[in-house]
């Protein structure tokens, strides 16, 4: 028997003519931080909202701690905590009141002081929700998701729209969840977030999981290669660049070219020679170790944020 705490099998979902999920399957084990990585519209939110019991799947099965999100009722709701992508609280609700109210709804006495301290909201204890910054609202949302001490936490794009500083604060909070051995499912379209936070990642595109594994395993797809991203004055034929020394893969992405090379110095020399001979010009060149973005580009031919 599987020790998975979250099990998703062949989930399908359509909104009218639009197919959102085409058979999504994955499992999450106890204490794992699992990421759904994909561009907007890939089906991440639909998947997570089915698991939260907010949406009904057309087909397939989903269980969380052995409970069906649709029929699990109050027991299921006590098991999970969630940060929704689009949600709010009344503007005139105070921060401490929100924590206290939701704790009471779960039949608990909130350790309001503890939660406020943990999420850096002590000074905002009496502030109205409407007066909080985006980052403070998101920290409160995470605090509310944890107010019932859930076994599984769902975070739907927890850092979307936040500035880098606040994003790093949220990362620290999620790292803390890892230390607390919480099981977390998070959706994101930030590569950095998935690589830094997730034990395992499922890359989702057009309603399907197109690859999954640990970030390291996924990046092994590009193992031994270096990513060279160049922009040129004039378009070049893919075939010409693919033929350069050391190049294992070449894709045109957003009017730039992403090359993967096993021998970067030789590739760069060959590239410069090729550009000279073809009267083209190198405008920029960046080199980096392959990331999950490269895996996504390899699999789909597109960038994550397209």
């Amino acid at each position, binding site marked *: 028997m599987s020790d998975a705490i979250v099990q998703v099998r062949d989930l399908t979902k359509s909104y009218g003519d639009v197919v959102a999920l085409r058979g999504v399957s994955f499992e999450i084990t106890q204490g794992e931080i699992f990421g759904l990585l994909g561009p907007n519209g890939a089906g991440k939110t639909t998947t997570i909202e089915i698991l939260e019991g907010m949406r009904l799947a057309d087909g397939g099965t989903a269980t969380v701690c052995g409970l069906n999100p649709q029929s699990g009722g109050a027991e299921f*709701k006590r098991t999970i905590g969630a940060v929704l992508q689009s949600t709010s609280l009344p503007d005139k609700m105070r921060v401490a009141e929100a924590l206290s109210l*939701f704790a009471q709804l779960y039949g608990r006495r909130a350790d309001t002081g503890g939660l406020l301290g943990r999420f850096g909201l002590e000074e905002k204890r009496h502030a109205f929700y409407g007066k909080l910054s985006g980052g403070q609202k998101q920290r409160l949302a995470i605090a509310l998701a944890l107010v019932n001490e859930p076994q599984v936490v769902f975070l739907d794009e927890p850092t979307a729209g936040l500035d880098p500083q606040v994003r790093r604060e949220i990362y620290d909070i999620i790292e803390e969840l890892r230390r607390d051995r919480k099981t977390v499912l998070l959706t994101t379209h930030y590569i950095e977030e998935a690589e830094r936070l997730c034990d395992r990642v499922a890359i989702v595109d057009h309603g399907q999981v197109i690859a999954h594994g640990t970030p390291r395993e996924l990046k092994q797809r590009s193992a031994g290669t270096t990513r060279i991203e160049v922009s040129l004055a004039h378009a070049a034929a893919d075939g010409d660049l693919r033929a350069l020394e050391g190049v294992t893969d070449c894709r045109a992405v957003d009017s730039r070219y992403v090359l993967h090379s096993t021998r970067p110095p030789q590739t760069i020399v060959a590239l410069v020679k090729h550009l000279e001979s073809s009267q083209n010009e190198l405008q920029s060149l960046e080199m980096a170790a392959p990331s999950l973005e490269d895996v996504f580009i390899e699999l789909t031919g597109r960038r994550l944020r397209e």
Partner: protein
Amino acid sequence: MNHAWTLTLFRLRLAMRNRAFLIFGIIIPLAFLFLFSAVFASKGGPAVAYVLASVLAMSVMGSFWGLSQQLVIFREQGILRRFRLAPLDAGTMLASGIFSNLILMVPGIAVEIAVARWVLHMDRVGNLLSVFVLSGLGAVTFAALGLVVASVANSMMETQVINQILWLGFLLLSGVAIPLPSLPAWLQQVALFLPATYLVTGLQRALIEYVPLQRLGGEVASLGGCAILAFFVCRQIFRWEPEEKVPRQAKLWVAAALIPFLLLGAWESSRGGRLGEARTILRSTFAERPAQQRDAAAPPPGEKR
């Protein structure tokens, strides 16, 4: 029940922080009380009680507006979906809105009665138990009807349009703004199908004729029945999500909420007693005015001969 009470307290706190509560719950009804009294009851006496019944009914019917708009705002802003994650059902969410509305209405009603009695020199306070029970039942009924509107409407604008139409209908046809006997005969028949009519006539009887609760069975049953049915209907068609479509059967449910008033209206129409009582109250109230004692031939204000 615990959750309903927790949410009720939360809603009360929010309401107390909202100036709209003070404006729409206290100040505007009092302004109408002074205005109507100046026009129809300048010499005090029982006419003030008649005017007070209309203003109380207007305050009670205000439940219809506030709660429906709040529910739509909560849905549109994604507040409801945050609550949906907690172990709550739609009935608890809706009941808390109705309870808090009921509690918030009590001070307004008390202030209006006190002002009528001690500032406008109303010579009687009627049967206060009947007044408060009818006001409470009315508040629950109109709040539940407002929640039905909010559950059917897809946006704030739609809610406002539907509310405006219903509100004007209630205001003009039920005896609140225009005494029922002053309406054309056919409109008086239409009024018998409106819940507001039973609230207004019930309050008039309680305030002016001291009618005890046990003799207000028709009003209590009609308002209570409507409250229960409207609550059941809004619970059936409640939507947590802004993009959730109104279910097809919603219209049937809404039609079901109107059934008691169709039946009651048909029954009252065939019986004819309620309109007769409304005429008697209007005549007796204004006939007591000293001016009218001197000029017995003068018709009560607004009444058609």
